[in-house]
């Protein structure tokens, strides 16, 4: 695209573009994780990457998207009806990930949200991402090949604890996909309102929706990127093989911690990025400054104890000049055209202005491309189940079996939940022989019991354990021992767990209770939540209201699979925050007994729920001893007394 008024010139001085260009020329970097991005930015990135890889390889790149539902057959291939009227009625249909068996068959796999990836997809990613060789051994098919896939995934950095580190570790390049708000939002909106809808049928137009489109100052015409300035550097880089200085290799180690989370893949990724960056520069040697520039691209900072020579190194100009977000590092070396930066006065003076302003393309993508921490999984709280990539255990008591998401098919053991298409395809394999053996001119499809296949489904919880924990009453009693049987029950029954924290020390808002949901008791955030310290306020009424809402939703809404819930309340009944104060987020004295009365009122509504067994573990407070019993009575709860802590004699 040469029309400057309608094209957006990509340039290697932009760090985001440069990172993608490095991935394009270096197959070892073609697994990119974008943090905190939007679907639009992800699509835009996919589009840019697709074009770059196509320039490098000379072959078109096909993109596929992995989401929440793909099963193994979708990913690896299946037998399917051929659609031909020929002799062979069905044939092998390749899966989404089995491409790449020849160099011209390159695919870009887009994962919009890594935290919501289906189990089958996550398992497939672990075996394919960065692998030397892929193997397919399914349904009579036997193949092995070198995977020829590019990976682009999005993930919220504050949810990274939901993803297996085993999977995360395989993403070599970590970038931030946040869009910088560099313009006046009001002006943007006014501009969009006046913008007439384009009759464009450009395939890319859907990728360029706001906010990215809005960031492009002066854009009026066909949305597209121009790769003209990139084509030559990308193609030149392919033939370059710079030597690597010993100092540069040593410098890479300065950026990697060898603590518990150490993964050699991180050093290798930085090495590859620095080398690719040097190749794009067209230099004959990869030096320390190339490593530093590559580290900047990923937001890596030298590990303090390993950085004796940082001052001397950073004194060197870091080439190539790369636009950096405001990280405070090497600002003098960047050539950003970011409109956040104050413009020199001389630029403001219009020397000449044409009748129709000519809009020049920006040379800066509006992304804050450098993640604050490219490896947030090292610090993120673990929110996934233990062994999250293993196939789930199968434990169903009732009809709930037919509610879990389909994760595959298996030989049927009963006639429930049959996978009809798979069953018929299995039968079809043997039709020729079966027709011969019956020899009675039977024309229909002969199905044998051994053909029957049923769906394999992800487990769904049929029970729920709800814990309402008033942290402010726990200090003087042995509550853990009394709680343990209920936690064990939740484990044995594979129950889902809802923890409602009342008065926890780390509450986001001290006047409100907060809820933590988990698929099972093994999710670490539950045990961390139970062990939380105590705060000052006791928003018991709000906690009970949260419990009521959650129970109603779990038991009565939509295709709910929860049949029974056990609500365990540990509280002394001394709520000191009225419900209205929790809702408003501010308290208006005097409070009086309002907090307690509100709690009793909500508790009475819990009593009306069917299939909920309520237990109150009484911490036996020394004052207001009747309050917990009153609360239990209103809720219709069984009462279990918690023994007090043995008194310590102080000499």
């Amino acid at each position, binding site marked *: 695209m040469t029309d400057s008024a309608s094209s957006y010139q990509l340039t290697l001085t932009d760090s985001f573009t440069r990172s993608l260009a490095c991935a394009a020329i270096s197959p070892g970097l073609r697994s990119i994780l974008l943090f905190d991005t939007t679907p639009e930015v992800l699509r835009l990135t996919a589009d840019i990457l697709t074009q770059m890889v196509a320039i490098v390889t000379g072959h078109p790149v096909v993109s596929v998207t992995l989401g929440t539902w793909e099963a193994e057959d979708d990913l690896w291939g299946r037998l399917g009806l051929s659609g031909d009227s020929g002799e062979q009625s069905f044939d092998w249909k390749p899966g989404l990930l089995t491409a790449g068996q020849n160099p011209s068959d390159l695919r870009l796999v887009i994962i919009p949200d890594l935290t919501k990836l289906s189990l089958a997809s996550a398992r497939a990613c672990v075996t394919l991402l960065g692998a030397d060789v892929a193997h397919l051994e399914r349904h009579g098919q036997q193949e092995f090949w070198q995977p020829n896939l590019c990976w682009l995934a999005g993930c919220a950095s504050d949810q990274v604890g939901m993803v297996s580190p085993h999977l995360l570790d395989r993403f070599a390049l970590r970038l931030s996909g946040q869009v910088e708000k560099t313009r006046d939002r009001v002006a943007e909106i006014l501009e969009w309102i006046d913008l007439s809808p384009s009759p464009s049928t450009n395939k890319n137009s859907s990728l360029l929706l706001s906010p990215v489109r809005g960031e492009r100052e002066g854009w009026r015409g066909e949305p597209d990127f121009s790769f003209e300035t990139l084509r030559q550097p990308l193609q030149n880089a392919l033939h370059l093989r710079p030597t690597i200085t010993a100092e540069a290799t040593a410098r890479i180690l300065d950026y990697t911690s060898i603590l518990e989370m150490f993964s050699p*893949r991180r050093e290798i990724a930085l090495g590859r990025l620095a080398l690719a960056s040097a190749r794009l520069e067209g230099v004959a040697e990869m030096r320390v400054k190339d490593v530093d520039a590559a580290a900047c691209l990923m937001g890596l900072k030298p590990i303090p104890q390993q950085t004796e020579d940082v001052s001397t190194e950073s004194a060197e100009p870091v080439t190539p000049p790369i636009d950096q977000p405001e990280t405070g590092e090497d600002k003098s070396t960047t050539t950003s055209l970011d409109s956040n930066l104050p413009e020199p006065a001389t630029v403001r003076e219009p020397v000449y202005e044409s009748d129709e302003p000519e809009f020049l393309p920006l040379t800066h993508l509006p992304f804050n491309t450098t993640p604050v921490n490219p490896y947030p999984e090292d610090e993120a709280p673990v929110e996934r189940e233990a062994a999250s990539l293993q196939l789930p255990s199968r434990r169903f008591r009732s009809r709930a079996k037919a509610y879990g998401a389909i994760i595959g098919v298996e030989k049927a053991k009963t006639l429930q939940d049959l996978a009809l298409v798979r069953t018929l395809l299995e039968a079809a394999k043997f039709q020729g022989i079966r027709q011969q053996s019956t020899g009675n001119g039977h024309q229909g499809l002969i199905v044998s019991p051994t053909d029957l296949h049923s769906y394999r489904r992800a487990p769904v919880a049929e029970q729920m354990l709800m814990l309402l924990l008033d942290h402010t009453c726990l200090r003087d009693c042995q509550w853990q021992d009394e709680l343990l049987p209920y936690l064990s029950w939740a484990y044995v029954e594979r129950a889902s767990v809802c923890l409602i924290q009342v008065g926890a020390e780390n509450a986001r808002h001290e006047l409100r209770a907060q809820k933590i949901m988990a698929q099972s008791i093994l999710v670490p955030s539950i045990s961390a939540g139970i062990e939380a310290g105590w705060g000052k306020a006791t928003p018991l009424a709000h906690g009970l209201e949260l419990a009521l809402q959650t129970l109603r939703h779990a038991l009565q809404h939509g295709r709910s699979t929860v049949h029974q819930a056990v609500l365990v309340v540990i509280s002394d009944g001394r709520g000191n925050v009225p419900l209205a104060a929790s809702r408003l987020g501010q308290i208006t004295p005097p409070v009086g007994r309002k907090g307690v009365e509100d709690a009793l009122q909500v508790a009475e509504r819990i009593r009306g729920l069917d299939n909920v067994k309520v237990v109150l573990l009484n911490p036996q407070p020394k004052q207001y001893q009747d309050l917990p019993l009153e609360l239990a009575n209103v809720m219709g709860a069984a009462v279990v007394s918690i023994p007090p802590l043995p008194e310590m004699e102080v000499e």
Partner: protein
Amino acid sequence: MDIEGNAPKTVVIEKSAIQILPYTLIVGQHQIKLALELAYIAPRIGGVLLSGHRGTGKSTAVRAFAQMMYGCLPVTLPINATEDRVVGGWKIDELMKSKPVPQAGLLEDANGGLLYIDEVNLLDDHIVNIILDVTSTGVLVVQREGQSQQKPVSFTLVGTMNPEEGGLRPQLIDRFGLMVSVTAETDEAKRTKILQTVLEFDQAVSQIKAGESSAYINDALEKDQKHRELLEKARQTFYQVEVPVNVAKNCVRLAGGFQAEGNRGDYMIALAARAYAALKGEKQVTNEHVATVARLALQHRRPGVLQSNQMPWRDQDNQLVQEILSGD
């Protein structure tokens, strides 16, 4: 591989154009290499489990070893495998033409060689059961899809896994004669060497893909060839290495001292020590050989380990090995 130590038959997967880092270029990871080599020299070891940190080159080491020894990739059982490919079935294309042509499964393909399971802890329980049946009896029984047959099969089971993603069932752990608890190399010189190797290998692969030859790869393949000859020689001399009675007694004492589960701990130590002696070109197994392999044979058989899937081996354990061997 048979008991007599005859050369293994060619494994089914043909030599491919897929570039795997040559075995002799692998930096560090001495324990991984040792375990794989011992299992080759003494096939009755039965299997090697490599369990450890992310990105430590476990899979690369196994593939590189198979490339070096067999000239091809190992027979691999991926976690996506269906039952018909594991135990065998029919060729679908032929079946469609009403011709029933049996298709061997992976267990049969691996007979006499190496069966590699990447991410072995992510394998479906149903497939694990099949493998356990075959490895414990040495017979593959097929009773499905109209097939009814029994075939003797024997292979070296090699599994790699990351324990962060869950453990293995005790019965399966027991099938692995040796186990390596893999950790990342933290020595700065080795880390540097690893980096250099990976970047140089990347460059060599791009050269080969561009139709050029790579002296870097060719040199490494020559070294691989020499190493292969060394291992083959060790395999041939394995049965000529003498195991003195006192060394055998020490193997029993070691298994007892570490309270090894099952009856195979002492036998595995002796087998591995003999293979190690053969590798070193010695004529007799010594206590030093036993000490070198004790950890590989014992760490996954200690009480409590099978439940927790933690395989700690501390300096005190090495000390205990020395004490037991010195008769203290």
